[in-house]
């Protein structure tokens, strides 16, 4: 499975949202329009643009990964890299007690938010019960990932909180059992490329990458 980390390319614009289709009943005499949704809950799309690939290796990495997606035929796990808007807080790094790092200069790292389901959730559930230990409280708007047995990594957004009951969109792609890990630290989603990504070179050297993904809703094999 290909993993796409947008932080690698320092995208200026990042737009992860849920899209779907509404059907309007027409505009009435008073100018009011009645709208229903007919998409069954919608799907996630992610758009990244103005990526910066000044380094030679970044340009080559972008070309390699965009080509590996085979024009959208293969699924790719897109990481959203948006820690600021997650409950995990700033990642804390500490050395050993004598102030020394590991031999490769890395430090101990805080683990972020720990969350899991406390009750079974049915397929297409839009309210789940979960327990979370995190630096910041859940306030709505956060995204999380559940790794389903057959649909794989799927991203959901918190839209409301009532005690340990959390309302989410889109509806769960697959049922999940109590104890299933809910990942707020690294929200990611199984998606596929949509359209043609841009990777034109300016002045023979600099490149700006833009790429768009839609959730991969093909039946899992």
């Amino acid at each position, binding site marked *: 499975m290909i993993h796409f980390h947008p932080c690698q390319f320092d995208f200026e614009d990042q737009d992860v949202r849920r899209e*779907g289709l509404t059907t309007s009943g027409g505009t009435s005499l008073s100018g009011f329009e009645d709208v*229903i*949704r*007919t*998409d*069954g*809950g*919608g*799907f996630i799309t992610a758009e990244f643009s103005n990526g910066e690939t000044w380094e030679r290796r970044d340009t080559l990495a972008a070309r390699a990964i965009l080509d590996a997606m085979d024009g959208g035929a293969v699924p790719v796990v897109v990481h959203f890299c948006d820690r600021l808007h997650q409950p995990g807080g700033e990642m804390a790094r500490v050395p050993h007690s004598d102030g020394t790092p590991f031999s490769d200069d890395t430090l101990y790292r805080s683990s972020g938010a720990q969350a899991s389901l406390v009750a079974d959730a049915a*397929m*297409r559930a*839009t*309210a789940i019960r979960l327990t979370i230990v995190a630096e910041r409280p859940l306030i709505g708007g956060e995204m999380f990932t559940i790794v389903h047995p057959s*649909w794989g990594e799927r991203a959901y957004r918190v839209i409301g909180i009532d005690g340990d009951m959390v*309302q989410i*969109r*889109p*509806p769960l*792609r*697959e049922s999940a059992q109590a104890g299933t890990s809910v990942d707020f630290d690294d929200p990611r989603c199984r998606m596929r490329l949509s359209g*043609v990504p841009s990777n034109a070179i300016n002045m023979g050297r600099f490149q700006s990458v833009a790429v768009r993904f839609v*959730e991969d*809703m*093909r*039946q899992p*094999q």
Partner: protein
Amino acid sequence: MNESFGLRIDTVPPARLWSGVGDLSIPADIVEAQPATYMGAGALLNAPDFQQLINGSAERLEAQISGVSAEAIRLALDEAASVRGAKVHFVRFDFDDAWQLIGVEYEAVFRADKLTVESQDEEGGARSRKLTLSIGTEDTNRSRSPLAYFTDQDQRRRSPTDRIFDHVAGITTGTSRRFGPR
């Protein structure tokens, strides 16, 4: 309230497609003996509007299905024989505001006629492949001219043991037949 639409094609096994995204489980009902799963994800491209008329003209509709999903290919290849004449249910799914299913309504029943595969050029040099399922009401195949009759064959398709139109094949224009055994 939200709603979605689906098609159930009574092949063996049945093909179930709905307009939403992802799988949709529905409980057993008058059509489904067991809880069933409808497949979403854009497999169903468009479902036509239909009219319910009493003594109106017979309808012919076309539903388009994505031609690249595994389910559609199964329908086109493996089930091609059982698609013809298969019952097609138009289904409406009602959801509450939290997208939980609150009702499944079978709005109309049609019959599938033929499945055609259509491959065409799209913008930007891409190609698209779609399956078009042609469906009609029970009356669609019979023209409504004065010389048309209910035929034994049609009636037997609906109800295999019903012999009411047994003698229709023997009728010619201008003759009148006596009722009763021959």
